[in-house]
Each structure stands twice: as structure tokens, then as C-alpha cells.
């Protein structure tokens, strides 16, 4: 599978995750969201940006709890819950948001 981003054709795996993570740019997220019929708000971007920062340092997506805590700090305590993250990313913050952010899919019993 491929997606078209700014005139470039980028390979993805069967589930739509970027094959080469270094090809990520912000418009990758926008294009992936369009495919899912989802429009990215500033709050969506807070999640994506945090995921990318965390991944940069730890080479893995953060635990759901780490993510909710960070988002709670940035957007207010009422938004620091996995319920809110599921409102933003109905397919699951760990999976859908990771995909948009150009992170590998979390594997295992999650």
C-alpha cells in the first residue's frame, strides 16, 4: 500500500503504518486522517507531537497512562483521561495516533 503526500508516494504496511518512519512529515498525519474521515484539531496535534517527542527519546510509544498524564498537563485535567483520548482517536490512542505520528504499531496484548 502507498499514500500520496505532497507529491511523494510513501509505502505503508497492510495496516497503513509508514514503512520507513524517517519519511514522516506533518502532512502524513493529515493524509492518514483524511483516509479515516477524521479531521485533525489542535488537540489531535498535541497527542501526535507528544508521541513523537517520547518516541525520539525512548524508541517506543508511551504507555497509555504516560500519554494521558502528559495530555492532562497540556490541555487540562479533564482531558487527561483515556476516555478523552478515545474521543479524539476512536480506533485507540495507542494505535491510531501512533500511525498518524509515524510511530510503529504497538504490538502484544494491547
Amino acid at each position, binding site marked *: 500500500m502507498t499514500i500520496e503526500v505532497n507529491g511523494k508516494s510513501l509505502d505503508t504496511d497492510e495496516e497503513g503504518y509508514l514503512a520507513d518512519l524517517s519519511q514522516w512529515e506533518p502532512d502524513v498525519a493529515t493524509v492518514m486522517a483524511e483516509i479515516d474521515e477524521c479531521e485533525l484539531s489542535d488537540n489531535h496535534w498535541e497527542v501526535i507531537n507528544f508521541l513523537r517527542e517520547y518516541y525520539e527519546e525512548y524508541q517506543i510509544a508511551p*504507555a*497509555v497512562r504516560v500519554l494521558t498524564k502528559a495530555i492532562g498537563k497540556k490541555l487540562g485535567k479533564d482531558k487527561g483521561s483515556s476516555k478523552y483520548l478515545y474521543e479524539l482517536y476512536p480506533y485507540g490512542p495507542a494505535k491510531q495516533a501512533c500511525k498518524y505520528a509515524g510511530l510503529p504499531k504497538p*504490538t502484544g496484548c494491547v
Partner: protein
Amino acid sequence: MAKAPEFDVPEAGDYIFTPPVLPGAMSHSQPFVAKEAHQEAVGYPGELIDNWQEVAIEKLGEMTKKYRGLQVYLDSCVKCGACTDKCHYFLGTGDPKNMPVARQDLLRKVYRRYYTLAGKYLPKLVGAEDLTEEVLDDWYKYYHQCSQCRRCSVYCPYGIDTAEVSMAAREIMATVGKGQKYCNEIIGKVHKIGNNLGLPEKALANTLEGLEEDVLEDDGVAVKFPLDVKGADVLLVTPSADFFAEPHIDGLIGYAKVFHQAGLSWTVSSHASEAANFGLFIGSYENMQKVALRIREAALELGVKRIVFGECGHAWRVGYSFLNTLAGPFDFLDSNYPVPQHIIEVTHDLLSQGRIKLDPEANDDKRVTFHDSCNVARASRMGSKAGGQFVLPREVIKAACNNFFDMRADTIGEATFCCGGGGGLLTDDLIELRTKGAMPRMQALKEVNEQHQITHMAAICAICKSQFSKVLPYYGFEMDQIISVHQLVGDALVMDTEH
């Protein structure tokens, strides 16, 4: 917004009825095939090999000699049909190839063709068939529609262990180059990094530190989450989902609080940061052993006296039933404790000895039922008495919670229904199967909910917890109605702030 599911969700009615037979209803369902890198990391060829038929048939023959049970299971089915309506995937899909007898016959007919006298000479008379590409495709589809839960085996008059047949078929497929992506990618990560998630040591340390801060903030108690502490008494081996996902992580907090309050010194290992052992699911003894050996290596390296398993269903099967033969002897551990021990046993013992106290009123906002996980229920035990795996978790829950109600008797205990995502099927590419397979459990939950207004279902398996988080909403429940047993324990534990 999310797209609506592209399949019909079965209705969880007033009772479980045997569905009309719908041939081919799930013939489109199959998981992604493992890529070259995933296959090679676990010792299998990267893609379907040219002489796959020959190799598959030879492998089947080898396996029936090596695992004599497998040959008995392939030889002894009399097609009585007792298993047909016992499988959650058949009940949820109506596909006749999901009747356990029919699913296992996909392998059995090939075994009969090449390894029995009648099948060699009179194949048509005895239902023997050549191994063709079509048969291989059927294997790939339908052996990934069995969660190896062994409910059908409970009702089989011959005691045929159908999970063994599914495991054997999966190993044959991986051997000829057609493995499953989800399982094989994960096993490769355990070999390389130490856990299913691929969670590196630095991230694990960061997550555990974060939990220490959270518990201190929430409870005012400095509960530690130690990592790689040499000389600790207890090595906790727990599914990596406990470090990552919800509601799992609240269970991990519960274990830590129990250890803290009981004054036990414990540690997690970054080398064996995974209890799950997907080698079981793909039927690979070699992979299962390689994963299990990490636990031994960590126990020796850290010099611990006990090994305790966290809440993980199939890990407890591997731990309780196979660990000693896979990675033993464990004569270097304290012989006063079982090797390994389940966290439920630890908590239960501490409660019996009065070393920890629970205040069940802390959970008075909850009305709880318990989902028996299949590998705990049908493939292991807890405590010293038969059936302890059913009694101990319930006693722990009742000590932590005043409002406990069981689901209907033929859906719990050894008759428990699989969550729908076990046995290496907890992957998004099988979401339709997972949702449909959850129907029998959802039916029983709905029933107990109507009678007792249940707010939460507790479980002791990482797969069950993730699966229910995902499928509960399809049946009108909330995703956070599934919780860890040790979340209830952690919330009810009377903490000594002086400790």
C-alpha cells in the same frame, strides 16, 4: 469519526442458541501472513517454500511421532458431534468449519491420507484428502479461528485436545513459510528485546518511575516499582501489557501495593520483562523454550528466591504446566514456595495469614463479576486443591469487594467461554472474528447484568482485558467496565503510611 464496523455484530440474546449453519460465513477471515523478517527471526523460512507440500507432510509425520498425544487426537475422533456447539467462534459465526470437529478435520483428513493404511489406498471411503493449495488456505483461515481455549475438549468424550491440533497446524504452516504476522513479529521482539511490546529498558524504567510518582500522589505512600534489583526475594514476571495498557496497569499497581504492604522485596527484570509466551500459540517448542529460558536467566542473574507471575492467562499455563521442563530445574529457588507462584496465590496467602488487610467498602461503588480465563481455567491450577484456580481468584475478589455475582454456571469455571481474542488472535486484522467470538461471553454478561446491575467484569489475563476493552462497546457496554483483579485489591488494600 470512526467508520461503522463492516460486519454484523451478532445479537447477545436472552440465552445462547445454536445458530443456523452458514457455510463459508467466515471464509474471508484470515490474519496477515508473516513477512520475511518476522519469519526468519523465529527460525522459519521467509516465504512459502517451493516444495511446501512435501515438507508439510513430512513435518506432520515427525510431529505425530514426537508428540504422541497429537497422534491419539488425530486417530481417535469418532465424529460424535459433542463439540459442535461448544465453540464460541461457531456460536458467533455459524460457519460449520468452526465446529471444532470440522476444524480439526482439516488436518485430520490430510494425516489420514498420508499416514493411515485405509487413507493411502481408499482415501474417498475414509474422508482422506490430498494436501492441496486449497487445503493449505483453509488451514490458514480456520486454524486462525481457534483460540486454543479447549472448551470443546471439556465436552469431548475422548478428551481430544483440539488446541494441540491447532498448534500443530500452525507450526506446520510456519515451517513451510506461511506463519502469522502478529505472533511471529511478537516472538521476534521477545528474543531481541525481552517483551512483546518491544519496550526497551530505558522506557520500562521511565514507566515504572512514573508509577511511583502516581501512587505517591494518589495514596501518599512511597510504593516502589523496582527494576533489575539484585538480591530481591521475588522476581515478578508479568505481561508487558501491564506496563503499557489500560486496565492492565492498575493491576500492576495492585501487585506493587501488595508487595509493599507485606514487606516483600521484589523486582521486575528488563531481561524477562514478559510473562506471555506466544511460542505456545504457534506450537513451537523451540520458541517457547527460548522465551521461557529468559526467566531462568533473569532469576539466576538477579539471585532471587521466588518467581511470581502476574495476571496473564496463557503465561500461567506455560508457567504452571511447562516451566520446569522448559527451563528447569529451579533448585536454586526457595523450596518453601511453588515454582512459579501466581500473584493471586501470593495475595491469597497473605490475606489468609493476616499479613495484609483489605477494606471491601473501598469498592462499594462497584458490582463485580469474574471472567475465568481459559488457560487458567482449563490448563492449570492455583493453590493446593483441585479447582483452586476457580476458588482463589473469587475469594480474593470477595475479600476486596462486597458485591460479587457470578455469571451463569455453564459459562464459568471449566466451562468458561473464551474472551474471543486468545491464542494469538488478538490482532486488528481479526476484529470481526474477535467481535463475533465474544458473543457467548457477552450474552452471559448481559444476563448477570440484568439480574444484578453489574458495573465491572474482572479478569486475570492481559489478552482478555485488551480484548474486552475493544469488544464491550460492540455489545452496548463501556470499554472501561473490564478491570484487573488486582485493581480491586489495590484499591481495597489497607496501606500503612508509616511503612
